[in-house]
């Protein structure tokens, strides 16, 4: 009796997205970069835009993103991906251009580039991986490191009196009139991963529609540099990061800029986790 007769042919439940190259990644076990890559690739596949999408990799653990995405890719100097994407998009208006940046890249050394890309309403999509630490250089304090969080460069825990406060980039960029879509999602469980994918899709659709700057911030794990197991890391995102970085849509297309914040029509959707939201209620989301 042959094997075929015993095991009926079954279509695989999960296949590799066409926009991902089927190779092993260099990411650490338990790191959510792989999930983020896959979500972006699935969205590109579903939108049917693989042939017209150009990515810009940044400096950090995702520096080799071009090895994993089956897409044309440029690799930017640290923090400058939004500037590269600006140049690419301005001379390639028919293409879809996205950057993939970590928190040190986007919120520290590249703070000016991301802020002004948003201010110009640059018609690009930004995937922002926030794991509250520098991964590639070995776990130093990031601009999104939480107060009290221990890193190799805040060994006693981040002391806000001398080391400053974490930046909430989504809230900050939502204030900018040129930003069309700004959302924060988390990759710590299945429900949130599915929500993240919807937001990523929205961020690409906003670019397709020429509505302006779109960014999705993804709360992500770094088990290696956090010194936690993969599961503990996901729990840490849920229990510690989400309260500090509330999930939701901070700006959606159609929000009219107005004094005192960027609340627009979609604010009514609410139902958002705002444990540490400083009174600011992000819109939509969970």
């Amino acid at each position, binding site marked *: 009796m042959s094997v075929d007769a015993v095991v009926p042919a079954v279509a695989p439940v999960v296949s590799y997205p066409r926009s991902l190259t089927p190779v092993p990644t260099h990411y650490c076990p338990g790191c959510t970069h792989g999930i983020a890559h896959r979500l972006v690739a699935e969205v590109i596949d579903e939108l049917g835009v693989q042939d017209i999408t150009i990515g810009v990799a940044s400096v950090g653990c995702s520096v080799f993103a071009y090895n994993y995405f089956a897409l044309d890719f440029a*690799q930017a100097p640290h923090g400058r991906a939004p500037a590269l994407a600006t140049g690419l998009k301005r001379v390639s208006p028919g293409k879809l251009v996205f950057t993939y940046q970590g928190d040190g890249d986007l919120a520290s050394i590249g703070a000016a580039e991301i802020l002004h890309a948003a201010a110009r309403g640059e018609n690009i999509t930004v995937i922002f991986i926030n794991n509250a630490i520098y991964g590639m250089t070995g776990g130093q304090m990031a601009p999104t490191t939480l107060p009290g969080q221990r890193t190799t460069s805040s060994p006693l825990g981040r002391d806000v009196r001398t080391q400053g406060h974490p930046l909430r980039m989504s809230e900050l960029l939502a204030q900018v009139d040129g930003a069309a879509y700004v959302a924060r999602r988390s990759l710590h469980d299945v429900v949130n991963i599915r929500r993240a994918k919807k937001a990523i899709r929205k961020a690409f659709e906003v670019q397709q529609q020429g509505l302006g700057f779109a960014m999705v911030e993804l709360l992500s794990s770094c088990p290696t540099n956090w010194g936690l197991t993969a599961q503990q890391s996901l729990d840490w995102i849920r229990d510690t990061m989400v309260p500090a970085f509330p999930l939701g849509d901070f700006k959606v297309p159609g929000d009219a800029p107005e004094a005192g914040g960027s609340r627009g029509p979609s604010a009514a959707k609410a139902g958002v986790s705002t444990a540490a939201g400083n009174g600011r209620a992000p819109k939509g989301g969970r």
Partner: protein
Amino acid sequence: MARELLKGNVAFAEAAIRAGCEAYFGYPITPQTEALEHMAKRMPELGRAFVQAESEVAAINMVYGAATAGARVMSSSSSPGVSLMMEGLSYIAGSRVPVVLVDIMRGGPGLGNIAPAQSDYNQMVKGGPHGDARMIVLAPATVQELIDLTVEAFDLAERYRCITVVLADGSLGQMMEPAELPPMREPRPAAERAAWALTGAAGRDPHAITSIYLDPEEEEAYNQQLQASYRHIEQDEVRFVEEHMADARIAVVAFGTSGRLSLTAIETARAEGIRVGLIRPVTLYPFPVARLRRLAEEVDAVLVVEMNAGQMLHDVRAATEGHVPVAFFGRTGGVVPMPEEVLDAIRDLHLQLALEEAVA
């Protein structure tokens, strides 16, 4: 095209447009801002890309991005702004995409001033960008040459997939003189961009444009490719201008504005019977090494004139390998030497040679 009275900064900006430049990214800085202003008006009306960036750091990276797409792209700036571009220039050189940059030099170091200087020579010619990267450096002496070299800069950058710098000073950027612009060349259609460009991986394998090679052996192999292209440049692209060298016993070597004002001094000196000529390097990289090496057989002394403390001087000394004495006259900090000062330096050198001859 007719000759018209053109300001240097406007002239090179319009020349770039007519050379088919598709995108300009820059940041205001004196004494080159008129170029940015000209681009701000002209590029949008031609349907081309113009962005006033938030900094020179961003501007050069926008240039980098547009270059990865295979577009003809440029920026312009002045000394302190160019310093900010060094990171981006290194990545551009390291990923071999063609880019044109015009540096209208001003007095320094630091914030310095807005007066003409040539003190970015070392920065632009000796590398500037980290790593073993070179940039072709062209040094115009007139507004006409500024126009012509800007046009040629695009062709050189694309031929060698490198950065081509047009290195001029604030006086050339600000001066008006009669010059002729080239005819308008339409930008290359997007469909005809280079095969390596990022255009979306339709019907082909994806392209990655990057400058990271973690394996040192791989990085060295890549460096060898870069060096091989630099050897081609050194062999085929040397340009210089000679004046009155046929009977010269003193050779003045000077580039750009220094070369121009030295010529005035040289012609006065010749009227006084001093046999002096000029070699004006037009390419600072590649440097006219072979031509300068021959000077030892032709002249008794060399005088290098620069608007800096003696930067090209070391390249002239290296090229002549100690076979001929090399003197120097320079002004720094944004001071443009008067031709009379150069004339005095020529006279001094002439007198010194005559004394040495008399003693011998």
